[in-house]
């Protein structure tokens, strides 16, 4: 009975949503002509290359135009880690060690992971270093790096993450982001102002001023945060969960 009611309610919601989206035809050009930009998106498409020197417009938006959002996003991730730490915090008894839920895995998986790990990390770093040139960027790259660590965490029961190092990476990356922003405030008058580093030439590695720097920092930070989250979630003592 409850099912039917809920379905009916959701169908009503769905009906109204579809009805609303009827105003927005799929695939229509809503950007408008270059002379008459109808959305901010059009403005970005028309001006990014010229004004920021970044080939990937999305990166420019994420890191610069809407860099403040990204700062918030990074903070959300940071908070997620912190929050997880606080929610799952457990006062450790004397001599007690973190123990992972995972079982000792097969030799095949272990070897495979060991071989793949450096390549995955490399790929991840590549992705976030080239975030301003190619698809991808700090978040994607960070996620890839975290996947590498996830492989190791799953494969090796005793794989130890340096918590200290994670904290350092996390914090330094965050500090870099904010400091660059503040530096912009001091030199250029606005927070995250992309003015104190030359823009460079389009489509080269060193282009876009602060954008790649921030994105790399973001990449490190995301990698560290995601790894941290995975580690925390995997480190629940199995004995605590009763069947």
């Amino acid at each position: 009975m409850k099912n039917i009611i809920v379905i009916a309610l959701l169908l009503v919601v769905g009906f109204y949503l579809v009805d609303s989206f009827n105003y927005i035809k799929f695939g229509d050009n809503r950007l408008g002509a270059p002379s008459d930009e109808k959305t901010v998106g059009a403005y970005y498409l028309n001006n990014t290359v010229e004004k920021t020197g970044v080939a990937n417009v999305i990166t420019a938006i994420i890191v610069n135009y809407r860099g403040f959002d990204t700062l918030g996003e990074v903070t959300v991730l940071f908070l997620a880690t912190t929050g997880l730490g606080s929610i799952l915090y457990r006062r450790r008894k004397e001599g007690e060690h973190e123990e992972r839920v995972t079982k000792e895995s097969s030799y095949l998986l272990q070897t495979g992971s060991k071989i793949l790990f450096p390549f995955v990390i490399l790929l991840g770093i590549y992705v976030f270093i080239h975030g301003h040139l190619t698809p991808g960027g700090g978040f994607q790259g960070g996620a890839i790096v975290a996947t590498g660590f996830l492989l190791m965490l799953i494969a090796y029961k005793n794989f130890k993450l340096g918590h200290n190092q994670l904290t350092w990476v996390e914090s330094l990356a965050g500090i870099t982001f904010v400091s660059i922003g503040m530096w912009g405030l001091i030199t250029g008058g606005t927070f995250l102002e992309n003015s104190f580093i030359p823009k460079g030439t389009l489509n080269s590695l060193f282009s876009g001023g602060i954008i790649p720097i921030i994105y790399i920092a973001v990449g490190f930070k995301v990698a560290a945060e995601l790894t941290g989250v995975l580690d925390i979630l995997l480190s629940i003592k199995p004995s605590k969960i009763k069947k």
Partner: protein
Amino acid sequence: MDFGQYQNIVTISVYGSAIALILIGLYAVLIKKNLIKIVIGLSLADAGIHLLFVAIGYLKGGTAPIFSPSVVGENVTMVDPVPQALVLTAIVIGFAVTAVALSLVIRLYKHHNTARIDQIKSLKW
């Protein structure tokens, strides 16, 4: 691509499928009793939202908004970059929420020894 006379059908089916995903997610949240399933439902709804985001950014014949050396200077139609940027943020936030949700599920399970939401009602009225 030109949808021509099928414009409406395409619109409804593209958006409709994304919306359906959202609704399925919400259904799971509202009906399923298992906490994990509820979290899955939330993720599903999130995924639907992300799809919608990308869909509204699409425009006919558009390419990725990257001025790689091959497209610089040429008159290429590009899709709206803003929704893509937004969806990235949304994904990250969705991840964070899911992570927190899962950790709370773990806590709840430890505390109440059950993962059924209708049995976790010590706070009421």
